[in-house]
């Protein structure tokens, strides 16, 4: 017997004699758990409004169009950036130096990056990044400012509703605000390893 078989046979020996096994709660019971911030899934406007509110609450910044984004980046003294070439952000390219390939060797020269959000969760104010929609994982993580471009129609009410949209993507990342820590004396600091400024451009 190898390690696998020995472990499984020990686990089986532990669970086989149980006179009764705990039942698995029905999925609809588990899925019915919603917090007070859970929006009505049938009301797209309510779902979007909840997302906007919760996203702001967790420290995310919202912008509604490209010109607003340009103004915001200027106010943050942004320099060179990267944008996913699939996003045709023409006026942005006029305002900043924008690469369409993320060069790992120059990772710290990008002050901002712009990538696509696959979706979002209203209830928790969360954007969803996937391998499929992010050409370069580092690009959405390493620069101080990250902008996720999110289509309003891809916002789901709850995480449970968003899970089926994950498909077979091997790396689904839910991002709920800027990277943070409270390891030193419980004091909240934003921008540890990931972005210190997390922006969502709603389109």
């Amino acid at each position, binding site marked *: 017997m*190898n*390690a*696998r078989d*020995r*472990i*499984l046979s*020990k*686990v089986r020996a*532990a*669970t086989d004699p*149980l006179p009764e*096994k*705990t*039942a*698995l*709660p029905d999925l609809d*019971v*588990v899925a019915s*758990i919603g*917090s*007070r*911030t859970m929006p009505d899934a049938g009301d797209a406007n309510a779902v979007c409004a909840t997302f906007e509110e919760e996203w702001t609450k*967790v420290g995310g910044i919202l912008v509604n169009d490209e010109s607003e984004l340009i103004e915001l980046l200027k106010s943050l003294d942004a320099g060179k950036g990267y944008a996913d070439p699939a996003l045709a952000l023409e006026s942005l390219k006029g305002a900043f130096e924008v690469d369409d390939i993320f060069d790992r060797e120059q990772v710290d020269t990008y002050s901002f990056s712009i990538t696509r959000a696959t979706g979002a969760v209203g209830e*928790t104010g*969360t954007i969803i990044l996937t*391998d*499929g929609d*992010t*050409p*370069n*994982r*580092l690009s959405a*993580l*390493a620069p101080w400012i990250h902008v996720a471009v999110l289509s309003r129609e891809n916002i789901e009410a709850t*995480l449970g509703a968003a*899970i089926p949209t*994950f498909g*077979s*993507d*091997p*790396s*689904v*990342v*839910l*991002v*709920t605000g*800027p*990277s*943070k*820590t*409270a*390891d*030193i*004396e*419980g004091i909240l*600091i934003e*921008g*540890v*390893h*990931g972005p210190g400024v997390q922006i969502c451009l709603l389109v």
Partner: protein
Amino acid sequence: MAKLEQAIDNHAANLDEETREAVRLASKAKTEKRVNALWTDFDDPNALRKLASQVRQHALDNLPDYLEQAEAAFQKNGVQVHWAEDGDQANAIVLDIMRRRGASKVVKSKSMVSEETELVPFLEKHGMEAVETDLGEYVVQIDGDHPSHIVTPIIHKNRRQVGRSFEREGLGEYTEDPLELTRMARRHLRQKYLDADVGMTGANFVVAESGRIVLVTNEGNARFSMAATKTHIAMVGIEKIIPREQDVPLFLSLLGRSATGQPLTVYTQFIGGPKSASQEEGPEEMHLIFLDNGRSDILASNCKEILRCIRCGACMNVCPVYRQTSGHAYRSVYPGPVGAVLSPLLNKAGFPDLADLPKASSLCGACQEVCPVDIPIPDLLLRLRNKGKQEHAPKTSINTPGLSFWALAATQPAAWKTGLKLGHAMNVVPHALLDVNPSAKSWRSTRELPPFRGGDFRSWLKAHEKKGGAS
């Protein structure tokens, strides 16, 4: 003060005031955050706890089936699945993967299970560079220290200590500013990620149905470990199974709120396999190591409920003993109430070595009240005290007054009667004489013995019966 013989008492007695205060304040603040988050967001958080408890217990009761289901699902996703009976086997698997990949550098995301196997010292011994990337764990590593809390590893340190450590390690000039200290760590660790060959993580949950691990961090270090490296190794305890992907939101709701008061941790990753073909960065290989290390024995024991634990740390934050002693007093990877149950059972040096931990509790029950999976920790502590007695573990009996005298009195009516008469004598004897017994002295150091007023019931009952009062 009486001589304290319990290791945990000694540790608490010798704790400096600064550390005690840091631990007490931080754990109190986290307990309040948890209560606020759960009761603001839900009408009845207890219903969530019961439901989560049921899902976890179901998974454990059917663990062999779910492990096989998970293994097949991971393999289908292109993940290489390994099994390790103990820490040594798990560490050897990691080393073997690294050697086959020609790797020499690993960045590690926070994982309690790798603390259990002492992975980092093992890899360093074999010439590998292993760097902890969670800010707190990084400080623990450079200080040669141990985490004192499973969620906030340096709860026992203050900003000045961190500042001195960073200065010593050459991260920058001394500062006490937590913001500047965090920036220093960001700059230093960024290069470590980019240079590393392997990203090592644990997992908060393992979803049997989909073959994905779910991993949460606030700092983004697990995400970075899986963005900058070419190999991902996840080491997970066999008990981490969640049956269905739709069960995950319930657990995330409880985990974030119970641990830090957040509805959802900042980075929540669902990882099922190596990077996709079009992806420019990230692991080409993903390995999952299922580690037993004593868990199957616990599953067969009368303490199996402890395996439901999702490692939120709420029980230590609320525990009056943890708040006074800090985590190191538990002399093991898992401190606090969960540790008092889990650590003696997982202990490499055997149960008797940590048999005192189940006694480090007043059985107040606060740990069970806050537990997101409703583990009956006080009951489990009692079962382990019994185990200690049955197995004659010496540490179970330290500082416990012997019960043989009481047992004698309780089985001999004449001795009992004499004892009750003697009770009145206590009212005239100076109480300081009691101090010959160390336990009595320790008890008396903070309390006054009340006057003895008992011993009259028997004579009262006799007189009452004579009067025909008994019906």
